[in-house]
């Protein structure tokens, strides 16, 4: 199908507001009588709260109220609480909030509050917690995640002793699965790679901290928050505040970065809301960067083992992986599970075994961070394919290609189907773009102190789902209003997907208005802006809503002009009779007619299967035009994979241990390209964050549990000078057959492939040496080159 808008560049509606500073983020709002709140956070990594004395604080002039755990909704442990109840789990854990006429008074009041803590044993290293008699991060246990209920897991001393210092000890797992004959696979392998690896935790480093501003009016809570998703977050945020979803007015037109840390809202949002309710004043809760390094969370780390057996052809016959996850104190991270799936997806092993223990630690709450699990896996395991390729004497690109999934590939322990996969094509396209066959010969070439490293990396994340609602409206002035609830993370998918509807309805983009960012704008229930979902998922909802709109337009034309709906087609913003061009009506006329007709045409009646959020939204605009609302019931069988390849050339300085990325390209398999400029932006930005994974850190003092990474200076993210001037990009541009437009997402895989291309390039520059660790720091490189052991212990976490 030929498109007018899909696949073409455009200027998204919100760019001008961003470049002029007019875009308003949560903390940019004010209200009359606004007051401030601040939280008191734990200064101890693990303690029981014995008593809290707020008497002095409450006496202070200007103090308006104190909110403790007793004032807020409770969620069963180990869920992330709004405020700590009896036990604190990390330094920076919020305990209570003070509201005052000014922030200064609130800060002084916090100084006047006395808390009697009973310090408890703490742990920042998962293996230490698994050691017999080792400390637990929570009094109730040390292992939990998703379906794995809170429990205590201790391994045998012999598990540790038999592994020695350098190899991963592997005791009883909390979750395990396997398929195929793993033992036979290893037996038949020509080459076997067996490695222990460690991935670091690090902050999301969103530029906007999670400040919240809230007030109440007419029984409704008005919340200005920094959130990735919009309508997908309403149920969760309402639950934190303890209100019905229809009583939440969520205003989040812009989100200054989330990267997984602001997907369905977060407990901290409820503090301003509940404080405002308690003291009956609008409340601003500003979050400092230091606060953000605590409550903002981090990417979980792994201490891990992997064994892979390859046939002479390079085919991966069997894989066995064991991940111990540093989970933070709550069961908020499922990275380990995603990493297991990534292993099956990226390399399609004939037999696979997976074991894992998600261990609770007294570090910040860990959670989804752009490609959670898949990307740590990619960054560490991809360079091992270089090692295997070398031993098998085959090309590094070829070994990836032979194992890469095609559309017949499978995923997970159940070997479920995929909707489409064109990773071999992505590899070929990247190789052509990068001139892989020529460039690979530069490996190890040295000029002065600089050595060239050539790297290749792949990334994967599922990238599309279904079941959400589309909502479109043509107002009697003829304008198309696209109501979208997917949020605004800066991917511009809110606009790119709106163009699907405009395109299908033969609308001029100039006559399309996007309604978003505020629940009062009649937003339907839409996909979270997370999990690389929004481009693909929202394309589907736009498609079904546009079909509904098309049916209604032709219905109205037949009713008004005679004949059957099937006699009519959509032309440029009008409905025209196929064989009698004199019979036509403009969309404007159709919208006016819809208001007269009422019923399903004007939104007075809606399909039963719509989500209640959508139904409520339609009710607020019913009668105002021609309304199309439909649930995406289109079939989708299997996982929709987003895939990517990155290639990089670095120059590593053997005297300083630093490296410079001289060139980097990335190619994505993300289905039909909706918006080339926006896609290129996601691909290059994702690769830049991938570079970040190789350099960012989250250091803890293991004895005291004190975080050393509490600002950009101590948890540095890539700057202009750490990244190449340009990341070249490409897209396979083959449609996914199970998406009506062919779209798949790609926001996350590109981070993994980017990180992996750099770890691969570092190994290449060092003659194939694998650090088996992120981050890779200059001192690690210098120590290695000098033949000295690293400064950290082999399995130590949060250490470099």
């Amino acid at each position, binding site marked *: 199908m030929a498109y007018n808008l899909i696949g073409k560049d455009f200027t998204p509606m*919100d760019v001008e*507001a961003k470049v002029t*500073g*007019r875009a308003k983020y949560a903390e940019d709002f004010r209200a009359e009588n606004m007051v*401030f709140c601040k939280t008191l956070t734990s200064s101890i990594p693990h303690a029981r709260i014995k008593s809290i004395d707020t008497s002095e604080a409450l006496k202070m002039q200007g103090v308006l109220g104190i909110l403790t755990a007793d004032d807020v909704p409770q969620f069963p442990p180990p869920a992330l609480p709004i405020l700590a109840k009896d036990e604190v789990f990390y330094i920076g854990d919020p305990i209570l909030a003070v509201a005052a006429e000014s922030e*200064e008074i609130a800060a002084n009041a916090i100084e006047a509050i006395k808390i009697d803590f009973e310090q408890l044993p703490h742990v920042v290293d998962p293996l230490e917690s698994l050691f017999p008699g080792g400390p637990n991060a929570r009094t109730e246990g040390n292992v939990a995640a998703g379906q794995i209920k809170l429990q205590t897991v201790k391994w045998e001393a012999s598990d540790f002793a038999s592994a020695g210092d350098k190899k991963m000890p592997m005791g009883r797992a909390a979750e395990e699965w396997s398929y195929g004959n793993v033992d036979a696979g290893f037996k038949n392998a020509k080459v076997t790679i067996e490695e222990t690896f460690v991935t670091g935790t690090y902050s999301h480093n969103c*530029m906007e901290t999670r400040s919240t501003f809230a007030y109440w009016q007419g029984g409704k809570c008005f919340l200005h928050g920094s959130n990735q998703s919009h309508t997908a977050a309403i149920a969760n945020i309402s639950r934190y505040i303890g209100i019905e979803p229809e009583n939440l007015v969520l205003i989040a037109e812009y989100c200054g*970065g989330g990267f997984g840390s602001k997907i369905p809202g977060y407990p901290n949002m409820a503090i301003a809301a509940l404080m405002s309710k308690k003291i009956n004043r609008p409340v601003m809760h500003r979050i400092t960067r230091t606060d953000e390094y605590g409550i903002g969370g981090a990417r979980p780390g792994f201490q891990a083992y992997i064994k892979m057996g390859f046939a002479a052809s390079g085919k991966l016959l069997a894989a066995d992986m064991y991940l111990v996850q540093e989970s933070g104190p709550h069961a908020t991270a499922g990275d380990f599970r995603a990493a297991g799936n990534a292993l099956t997806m990226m390399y399609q092993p004939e037999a696979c075994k997976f074991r894992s223990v998600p261990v609770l630690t007294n570090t910040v709450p860990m959670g989804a961070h752009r490609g959670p699990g898949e990307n740590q896996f990619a960054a560490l395991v991809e360079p091992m394919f270089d090692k295997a390729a070398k031993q098998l004497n085959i090309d590094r690109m070829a070994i990836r290609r032979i194992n890469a999934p095609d559309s017949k590939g499978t995923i997970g322990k159940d070997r479920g189907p995929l909707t489409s996969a064109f990773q071999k094509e992505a590899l070929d396209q990247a190789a052509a773009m990068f001139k892989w066959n020529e460039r690979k010969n530069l490996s190890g070439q040295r000029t002065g102190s600089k050595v060239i490293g050539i790297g290749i990396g792949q990334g994967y994340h599922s990238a599309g789902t279904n079941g959400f609602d589309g909502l479109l409206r043509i107002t009697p002035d003829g304008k198309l209003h696209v109501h979208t609830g997917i949020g605004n993370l800066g991917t511009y998918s809110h606009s790119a997907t709106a163009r699907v509807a405009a395109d299908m309805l033969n609308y001029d983009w100039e006559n399309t208005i996007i309604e978003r960012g505020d629940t009062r704008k009649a937003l339907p229930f839409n996909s979270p802006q997370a999990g690389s979902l929004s481009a693909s998922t929202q394309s589907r909802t736009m498609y079904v809503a546009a079909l509904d709109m098309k049916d209604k337009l032709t219905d109205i034309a037949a009713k008004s002009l005679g004949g059957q709906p099937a006699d009519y087609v959509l032309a440029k913003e009008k409905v025209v009779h196929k064989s009698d061009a004199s019979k036509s009506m403009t969309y404007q006329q159709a919208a006016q007619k819809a208001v007269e007709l009422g019923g399903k045409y004007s939104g007075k009646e809606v399909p039963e299967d719509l989500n209640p959020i959508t139904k409520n939204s339609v009710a607020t605009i019913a009668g*105002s035009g021609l309304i199309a609302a439909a649930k995406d019931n289109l079939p989708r069988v299997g996982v929709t994979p987003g895939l990517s390849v990155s290639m990089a050339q670095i120059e590593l300085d053997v005297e300083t241990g630093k490296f410079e990325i001289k060139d980097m390209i990335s190619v994505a398999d993300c289905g039909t390209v909706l918006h080339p400029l926006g896609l290129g932006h996601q691909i290059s930005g994702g690769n830049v964050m991938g570079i970040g994974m190789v350099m960012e850190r989250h250091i803890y003092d293991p004895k005291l549990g004190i975080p050393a990474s509490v600002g950009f200076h101590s948890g540095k993210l890539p700057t202009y000078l750490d990244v190449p001037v*340009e990341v070249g990009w490409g897209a396979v541009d083959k449609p996914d057959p199970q998406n009506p437009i062919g779209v798949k997402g790609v926001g996350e895989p590109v981070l993994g492939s980017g990180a992996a291309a750099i770890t691969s390039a570092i190994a290449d520059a060092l003659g194939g040496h694998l650090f088996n660790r992120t981050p890779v720091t200059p001192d690690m490189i210098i120590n290695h080159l000098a033949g000295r052991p690293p400064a950290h212990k082999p399995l130590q976490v949060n250490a470099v």
Partner: protein
Amino acid sequence: MSDADKNATGSSGIRASRRTVIKGVIASGVAVSAAGYLVYDRYGSSLGRAKGSVERLVTLNVNGKDRRVDVLPNETLAHTIRYKLGLTGTKIGCDHSECGACTVMVDDISTYSCSTLTHSVRSRKVTTIEGVEGPNGELHKVQKAMIKELGPQCGFCTSGQVVAAVALLKQNPTPTVDEARRGMSGNMCRCGAYDHYLKAVMTASREA
């Protein structure tokens, strides 16, 4: 763009009660009172108010206009701009002079306003993102280039990036790419939009 901008600031035609309209105006970023915001030290705790320290009424030249404002001795320029002058385009990302989201120009030099004492810029010329546009609201060539090249992603660092780019081009109207990236390197972007921003700087440098 005028339609698009209208879109961004919300002309929806959706029925809203008078009450929501009123509230919408109230919660709109207009400075109401600034007394409440705390000036932080670099570790995020209160700088407090030195004993006996009081606000002094001073005149600041911001975006070509003289503004009279009460300023504490320890008050940062970012604080004054955002919370006293109501110019919320300037963002605070770290408050530690690390990220550059708060970048403004002081006498045309790119400056971290979060780490500049307001008293130190009296009698100097301060330009924030709101002052980058021309007198009739015409976008600066850097802003036009940022739109053309799709500079921002999430947009939170964008004000600082735009101001840094404007300041850079004032100092060096035709930078090489390497000069441009060094000139911009005090401004972080977590989305990794660096190459798009850089392209915009180079595009703008080619415009008269």
